[in-house]
C-alpha cells in the first residue's frame, strides 16, 4: 500500500465545473477590459449598455461614435481573437492526445509552415486579402496531406514517430519555400507584410473575413467535441486502443483532419501565433486531468481568454501595434517552463 504517495485524488478532477466557471468569469472580465481600453477609452458601463442594446435591439442612448468604437471597431477584432485563441487551444489539445505527447503543438505537422508559405505566395502575387487567406489555408492543408501521405508510404511500424519526423521535415521544406519567397519579395511593401503575417496580427481583421473563417473552425470543432470519448483512447498505445475496439487509423485521420482545419482557419485569419496551442491545453490538463471531455471545453475558454488578453496588450502597451506572436512567445516561454516544472513534480 502506497498510502503516503500524493493526495487521495487529483484535486482538479472534482473541480472541473469550478475551473470552467472561473475561466468563464476570467474570459468575461478580459472581454470587458478589452472593449474599454485603447486609444479611445470607453467606460465599462457604456460597454455593457452598447452590448445590451446590440443584443436586444433597443436604444443604447450612447453617442454614435462611442457605439461605433465598441460595435464596429473593437467587436470584430475581439471576436477574432477569441475565435483564434479557442481554435488554437482546441487543436493543440487534440494534437497532444493524438501524439500521446503533452508537449506537441498545432505546428507539429507542418501546418503553420504550410499556411505561411501559402500566404507568402499570395502576398508575393499581390493578391487580395481573401485570396491570401485562401492560399494560407490551402498551404496548411497540403502540408498535412503531404505529411500523412509520406507517413503512410513509409509503413505502419511506429506510425506516430514517423508522422512527427515527417512533419518536421516537411515543415522545414515549407520553411525553405518561405525563405525563397522572402528573397524575391519587394522589400518596400511585400516583405514587411510577409514578416508581419509570420508573427500574426488581428489589426486588419474585417467582419467578413471573420464570418468566413468561423465556418471551417466550427466544422472542425464539431467532430472533436463529438468524438471526445474516443479521443481519450488515442492517448493509449495503438495496440491498446485497437484491442479496445477503436478503429485507430480512421479515428486518427478524423482528428488530424479536424484539428488541421481548425488550425488552418485560425492561421488564415490572423497569421501564425505560436504557443497558445501548446501552453493552454497543457495547463487545462494540469487543472482537470487528462480526460478530453474536460480538457476540450476548458482549453476553448482559457485559449480565448488568453488570446484576447494578449491582443489587448498588443494594441495598448505601445504607440505602435506589437505582433501577438511575439507576445505569446514572451509570455508562453516562462509559462511553459513553469508548467513543465509542475508536470515533472507530479
Amino acid at each position, binding site marked *: 500500500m502506497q498510502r503516503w504517495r500524493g*493526495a487521495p485524488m487529483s484535486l482538479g478532477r472534482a473541480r472541473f465545473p469550478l475551473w470552467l466557471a472561473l475561466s468563464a468569469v476570467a474570459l468575461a472580465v478580459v472581454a470587458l477590459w478589452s472593449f474599454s481600453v485603447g486609444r479611445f477609452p470607453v467606460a465599462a458601463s457604456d460597454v455593457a449598455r452598447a452590448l445590451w442594446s446590440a443584443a436586444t435591439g433597443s436604444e443604447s442612448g450612447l453617442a454614435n461614435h462611442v457605439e461605433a468604437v465598441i460595435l464596429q471597431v473593437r467587436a470584430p477584432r475581439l471576436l477574432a481573437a477569441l475565435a483564434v485563441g479557442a481554435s488554437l487551444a482546441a487543436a493543440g489539445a487534440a494534437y497532444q492526445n493524438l501524439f500521446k505527447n503533452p508537449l506537441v503543438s498545432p505546428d507539429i505537422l507542418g501546418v503553420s509552415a504550410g499556411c505561411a508559405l501559402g500566404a507568402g505566395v499570395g502576398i508575393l502575387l499581390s493578391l487580395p486579402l481573401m485570396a491570401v487567406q485562401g492560399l494560407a489555408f490551402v498551404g496548411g492543408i497540403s502540408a498535412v496531406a503531404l505529411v500523412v501521405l509520406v507517413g503512410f508510404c513509409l509503413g505502419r511500424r511506429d506510425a506516430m514517430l514517423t508522422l512527427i519526423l515527417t512533419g518536421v521535415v516537411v515543415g522545414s521544406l515549407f520553411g525553405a519555400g518561405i525563405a525563397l519567397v522572402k528573397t524575391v519579395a519587394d522589400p518596400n511593401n511585400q516583405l514587411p507584410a510577409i514578416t508581419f503575417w509570420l508573427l500574426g496580427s488581428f489589426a486588419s481583421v474585417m467582419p467578413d473575413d471573420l464570418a468566413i473563417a468561423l465556418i471551417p473552425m466550427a466544422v472542425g470543432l464539431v467532430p472533436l467535441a463529438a468524438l471526445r470519448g474516443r479521443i*481519450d483512447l488515442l492517448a493509449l498505445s495503438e495496440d491498446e486502443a485497437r484491442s*479496445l475496439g477503436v478503429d485507430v487509423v480512421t479515428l486518427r485521420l478524423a482528428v488530424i483532419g479536424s484539428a488541421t482545419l481548425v488550425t488552418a482557419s485560425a492561421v488564415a485569419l490572423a497569421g501564425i501565433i505560436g504557443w497558445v496551442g501548446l501552453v493552454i491545453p497543457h495547463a487545462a490538463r494540469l487543472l482537470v*486531468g487528462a480526460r478530453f471531455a474536460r480538457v476540450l471545453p476548458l482549453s476553448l475558454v482559457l485559449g480565448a481568454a488568453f488570446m484576447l488578453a494578449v491582443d489587448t496588450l498588443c494594441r495598448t502597451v505601445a504607440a505602435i501595434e506589437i505582433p501577438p506572436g511575439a507576445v505569446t512567445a514572451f509570455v508562453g516561454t516562462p509559462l511553459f517552463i513553469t508548467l513543465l516544472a509542475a508536470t515533472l513534480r507530479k
Partner: protein
Amino acid sequence: MTLSARGLGFGFGNRVVGTGLSCHLDAGEVVCLLGPNGSGKSTLMRTLLGLQASLAGDVLLEGKPLRSWPIVERARRLAYVPQAADSYFDFSLLELVEMGRAAHRGLLSGPSAEDKRAAMAALQSLGVGHLAHRSLHAVSGGERQLGLIARALATEAPYLVMDEPTANLDYGNQARVLDEIGRLKERGIGILLSTHHPEQALRVADRVLLLRDGSLIGQGDVGATLTSEALSSLYGRTIEVATVRLANGGERLVCVPSASA
C-alpha cells in the same frame, strides 16, 4: 468456445518469426507462454490478438477467423493486458478502466452510468476500488497493472491475453497480480500470459506453451510439460525443477538454474 490457432505463421512481412504453430486457449484455464528473449512471444501474442495479420493459417475466435470479426465485437470477446507503462496521461484509475467500456457504447457517447458501475466493479473485484479516483501517476506499478487488468475485465471479454503482466513489478506486487489471475480463472475467464519466470507457470498455469525460435518445442499440462529437460532445452542451460517442503507441510515445485560450470 475457444481461442485457437492452426498452422499459424507469424512475423512481419518478409521476416518470418514462426510457422506451423498450433495452440488453443479455453475458458476457465490459465495458459503460460514461456520462451527466451527473441523467441517470438510478443509477435505470437499480437497475432493471436489480431493486432497483426497472420502470415499463414488462421486464428479462430469461437470458431470464426479473427479477421472476420468486426473490431467492436472482437473487443468484447478478446481483451489485451499490456505491460504497465509510465507514459500514461494523467487519467485516474477509474477513467482508465472506463476506456474498457468503449466497445459497449456508441462512437459519440461518453461513459454511461452503467459503464461507470461496470468499471468500478472491475476495480473492486481486484481489490483496488479504493484507488479509483487516484491519478495513474500516484499509484504503484502493481496497482497500475491491476488497473489494466480491471480495464480488460470491464470489456467483459471471456479471453484475456496478458503480455508479461509481472514485468517491472517488485516481488510482492508480482505475487499480488498472480493471485488475482488465479481468481479470474475461477470466474471462468481464459487467460494466456507470457512470462520470463517458469515458477509463475508452476504457480498459476494449467498448461504451458514453450516457444523457442518461433516454434513450440512443447505444450501441455504444467506437471507433464514443465520438466527439467524441457526447461533446460528451452533456455539453453541446465535448469532443475525441484520440490521444496513448506513450513505448513505443503509442497511446492521450484526452478533452480544450475551454477555455471
